[in-house]
């Protein structure tokens, strides 16, 4: 698709990307999700490709206004893949581009969630949170630096995707699956560690037999360290599987239950 390069210049691509990052999820709604910001972002580039044929654009946008939802940073790349197809000005360009958009949005959202929204923010958030509680801003600076670096990687990659067209994404697709897998593994390891260190639930029940006071929490911790943490994380995980349960409801349940547990001296 190297002949497409001539249609949109680097400046046009920068303009499209700027519009996209400013408005990629404006007008979010439950019918079409991210499509509103998408059409607004692509408009100047489409106008350049198809000239001032407003009627044609209006037809094409009918397709682009349809349902679209993906990881916003990977959206940069999907946008560029679609513009690369549109740049051919082929009769069926829009049909192909929208098919590509729909085909890519699911897998790329999965990968994006695993790395960009789960793995990195969990590790970085833990470091930043602990450091902040000790009065240091350094952890947050580190987290922000990592975030900006990743953000810039996706900005830069977008130009490459336009230049190389779809082949860039498809050539990497087998590796993408393996990458999602190992990032999930790393995520699981980090969560396992954080259940031990970031959650703090101590069971403070105790009883006295003659001279000896026995603490249930100490007893349980001898069997398994951080026993309270493991128990309550498992309970909440199980609770989230109940029908009609949502994270919003669960916050209230955890809040009320933990206040009761603290009030009655069962936990501390």
């Amino acid at each position, binding site marked *: 698709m190297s002949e497409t390069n001539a249609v949109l210049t680097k400046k046009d691509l920068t303009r499209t990307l700027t519009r996209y990052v400013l408005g*990629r999820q*404006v*007008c*979010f*709604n*439950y*019918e*079409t*999700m991210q499509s509103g*910001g998408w*059409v*607004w972002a692509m408009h100047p580039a489409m106008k350049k490709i198809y000239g001032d044929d407003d*009627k044609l654009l209006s037809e094409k946008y009918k397709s682009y206004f349809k349902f679209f939802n993906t990881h*916003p940073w990977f959206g940069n790349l999907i946008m560029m893949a679609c513009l690369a197809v549109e740049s051919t000005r082929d009769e069926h360009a829009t049909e192909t581009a929208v098919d590509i958009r729909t085909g890519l949005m699911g897998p790329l*959202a999965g990968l994006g969630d695993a790395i960009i*929204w*789960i793995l990195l*923010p*969990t*590790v*970085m*958030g833990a470091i*930043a*949170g*602990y450091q*902040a*509680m000790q*009065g240091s801003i350094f952890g*947050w600076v580190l987290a*922000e630096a990592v975030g900006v670096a990743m953000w810039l990687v996706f900005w830069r990659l977008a130009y490459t995707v336009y230049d190389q067209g779809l082949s860039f994404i498809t050539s990497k697709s087998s590796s993408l699956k*393996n990458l999602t*897998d*190992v990032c*999930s*593994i*790393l995520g*699981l*390891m980090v*969560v*396992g*560690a*954080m*259940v*031990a260190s*970031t*959650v703090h639930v101590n069971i403070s029940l105790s009883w006295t037999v003659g001279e000896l006071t026995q603490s249930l929490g100490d007893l349980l911790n001898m069997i398994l*360290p951080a026993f309270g943490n493991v128990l*309550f*994380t498992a309970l*909440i995980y199980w609770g989230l599987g109940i029908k009609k349960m949502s*994270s*919003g409801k*669960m916050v209230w349940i955890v*809040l009320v239950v*933990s*206040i*009761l547990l*603290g*009030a009655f001296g069962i*936990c501390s």
Partner: protein
Amino acid sequence: MFTPLQIILMTLLVAFLTWQKYNLQIIAYAAVVFVGLASGLIMGDVKTGLLIGGEMCLMSLGIGGYGGSSVPDYNMGAAAGTVFAIAMGQTGTTALATAVAIGVPVAALGVQMDVIGKMTGSFFIHKAMACSDKQDWKGMGRWVWLSQVPFTLLCALPILLLMTVGSTYVESMVNNFPVWLSAGLNVASGMLPALGFAILLKYLPMKKYGYFLLFGFVLAAYLNLSILAVALLGTVFCVFIFQLKEENAKLALAATAGGDNEDE
């Protein structure tokens, strides 16, 4: 209790964060610490802001709006918790208890605000589509962007109401915390991170790779390694596993190619 300038700045901060959280996303990681820091700056006590931001950040770990779902908004929570703790002159553990008592309900309220905000989007998307059909590009852009007015206002509404009409109620409530409630809030701040991890586990491949949880747990609970140490060690393992998987894929590809040749 609050100066008009503080109220305006905090409302604008939360409105701005609502837009940036979904669109620009340049403050993506540990954003809750940033919210605590910025709120602390506005309220004149950066140290307490940082402390509350850190606590709320730990509670928010693992909570993310995957696939357009609405989840508790700890940005809103940290903002609300910080302004009241600082306005009441609290520091240290008292400030943390106040922040949990106010911040967590506000964060949970964020779910409703987010859902209503996204529902209003339907009205604007249809207006934008209608403009597009009429080739009115200016109108299309206008309607797409106007959707941000109700959305950001809805999300900034809790902090605005709390800091204006709600402030005296909140103040007297916090001043009259019974001992048992303080003890309970302390437990809540330790248990809420577990919710984030539980949500996260729902999105991770538990059935296929769940046993890796044990690995991380042992490293932290028995060997007392820090999170960064676990993450670095985990990276070594995962790069190795990735290389193995890639090599296997190559071998499998070569094997099928070889098989084809034999057929010919």
